[in-house]
């Protein structure tokens, strides 16, 4: 298929395709980060992850409406405020859910799966009842739209850059929080030995609640960012759930590095195959590849080897 293109065109293709892969990588990573914290650190299967993301998207929508109607002069920066709001609103909902539901289920991971699926149904219907069944269109400030031309053919999407920057910032923040801060140590202590952590004076309930809240909050930010590239409707969250879980599981649940590596692998595979094959087949092959690799290497890409 390349014979008809010149060398410069070909290099442009690869550049653009590489960039598309990086955007997809950022999107996957952003989706998966919140879940990686909740699933990886707490062992909770949060099937309502997508719905938390959509809550973030709705928060963004309403923030944009508010700015449009009341302070149109500041519309250009509403997105940052929306993301902060999204973080706190979804985080708060997450903490409420943890308190009402999840904390009773830490010893029963499969049951958290069922309960959070129930939660996702309730949230979907809630969105439908409150926000209406139709998708809402989130208007973006004009500076976030469009692309920067690098060469004649190569163009760089601004929102892609934005998502990438956001992803890097959040990943770094999470890494610092988890591996450098004392709070991160507490989280890991609770994960490894709840009883012992309690015994040495860590408030395990509080750690659980804030960890879950943090994971949900990050989901909210992701949802907020995805208003740039995807749809916002009551059932939009469902579109993300399988991909997200596969990224986290494929990475090896306990490691942030694993999640990054797996998001990278899956996104590059999918983006490359999409270029050469039809979209449906690319999707099937990517999923199948992940499943087969998981069957051969169930512990995921990265794993801390432990004595059983």
């Amino acid at each position, binding site marked *: 298929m390349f014979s008809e293109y010149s060398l410069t065109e070909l290099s442009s293709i690869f550049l653009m395709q590489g960039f598309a892969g990086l955007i997809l990588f950022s999107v996957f990573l952003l989706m998966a980060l919140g879940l990686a914290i909740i699933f990886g650190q707490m*062992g909770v*299967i949060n099937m309502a992850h997508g719905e938390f993301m959509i809550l973030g998207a709705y928060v963004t929508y309403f923030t944009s409406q508010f700015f449009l109607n009341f302070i149109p002069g500041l519309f250009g920066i509403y997105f940052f405020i929306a993301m902060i709001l999204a973080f706190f609103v979804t985080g708060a909902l997450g903490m409420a859910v943890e308190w009402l*539901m999840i904390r*009773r*289920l830490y*010893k*029963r*991971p*499969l*049951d*958290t*799966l*069922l*309960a959070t*699926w*129930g*939660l*996702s*149904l*309730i*949230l*979907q*219907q*809630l969105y*439908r*009842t409150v926000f209406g069944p139709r998708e809402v269109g989130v208007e973006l400030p004009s500076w976030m739209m469009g692309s920067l031309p690098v060469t004649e053919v190569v163009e760089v999407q601004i929102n892609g850059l934005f998502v990438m920057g956001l992803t890097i910032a959040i990943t770094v923040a999470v890494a610092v929080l988890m591996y450098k801060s004392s709070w991160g140590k507490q989280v890991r202590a609770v994960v*490894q*030995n709840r009883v012992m952590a309690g015994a040495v004076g860590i408030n395990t309930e509080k750690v659980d609640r804030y960890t879950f809240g943090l994971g949900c909050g990050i989901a909210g930010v992701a949802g907020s960012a995805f208003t740039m590239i995807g749809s916002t409707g009551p059932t939009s969250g469902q579109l993300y*759930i*399988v991909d997200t*879980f*596969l990224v986290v*599981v494929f990475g*090896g*649940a*306990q490691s942030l590095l694993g999640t990054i590596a797996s998001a990278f692998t899956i996104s590059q595979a999918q983006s490359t195959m999409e270029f050469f094959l039809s979209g*449906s*087949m690319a*999707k*099937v092959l990517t*999923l*199948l590849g*992940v*499943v087969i690799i*998981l*069957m*051969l290497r*169930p*512990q*995921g890409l990265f*794993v*801390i080897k*432990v*004595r*059983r």
Partner: protein
Amino acid sequence: MTIPAPKSARTFFLRPQDMIGIALLALLLLVVLPLALDNFRLQFVGKYLTYAFVALGLVLCWGYAGILSLGQGVFFGLGGYCMAMYLKLEASSPENTKIQSTPGIPDFMDWNQITSLPWFWEPFRSFGFTTLAVIVVPAIFAFIVGFAMFKRRVGGVYFAIITQALAAILTILIIGQQGYTGGINGITDLRSLHGWDIRTDSAKTILYFICVGLLLACILLAYFVKSSKLGRILVAMRDKEDRVRFSGYDVSSFKIFVFCLAASLSAIGGAMFTLQVGFMSPSFVGIVPSIEMVIYTAVGGRLSILGAIYGTLLVNWAKTSFSESFPELWLFGLGGLFIAVVLIFPNGIAGLWQSYVAPRLGPLFGGAPTRRAAPPSASPPASGPIAPAAAE
């Protein structure tokens, strides 16, 4: 030395209370419902009962063996599609399809420029092969998946997520390969089975009774498995997998067996679904139906064979009547049910029955049942392959 025969050491595989339970269910399904409901409602029950096959499989697979599969829709679908392929071929006789450019092949193939029947459709001209395929094809598929995963000790949450991904993959494949599968519309307009028109009311009533008959047979099979040593090994495995392994059992082969069994049961349900409803589509294969089928089992009581049947009937009945009168509320109800069944009554209807009803009925039947439902902590601990457990 006299050996006091333990109570549990019975010779027949059904305990008296099981026999009463099955008899009551048979009475309900074979006599009470057909008399009480009109034809239209009875066919609803018939459709619900096809899901009960899946729930039954999940009791063995999830309740007893602790393997939660979120991909049972795959097997339900495989069974249903096998049957649908047979019926479609019968409905696509050259006389019925003479307006097509290639008469004698299913209509959707003709629309997709397929000019001859694909090879894998060919054997489905035979009813014998189809019947066999309904049971064997899903079992083979389950075997491959189970073999790959259980031999490597993938379990718990990982297994659940991978099976869920499989459901997603199969759905995309079926929709994408519409020339061979009918795509998103599924295989529709199925008319007759060996010349017997399955669309008439009388046929549907007969199919209802066949469905009930098969379900009762599968229930007996489930009881047989449950009360055999294999049933106890499954319970043992869910509790202390390592201990079973170090008692000389190849744990993975037992898991594979029960997973295949659950797959075949689901597939029988799928085939009966196709026969009764008259079509099969990818919307029964995907993630959402698969996880809904889990809730039937959970509501019935994940450890109770009969509970699964009642759970299926109850949830579906609620769905139908709720969504008729308050369509907006149904999802709240279903979502709430998921949460309630986990938080409030983890052993479902059967658990409620055990704790509240049976003790009062106990004197009537002579002795309370000993151990049908485990205490609330019964849910199996997920043993992910990398569950960090400190040694020493």
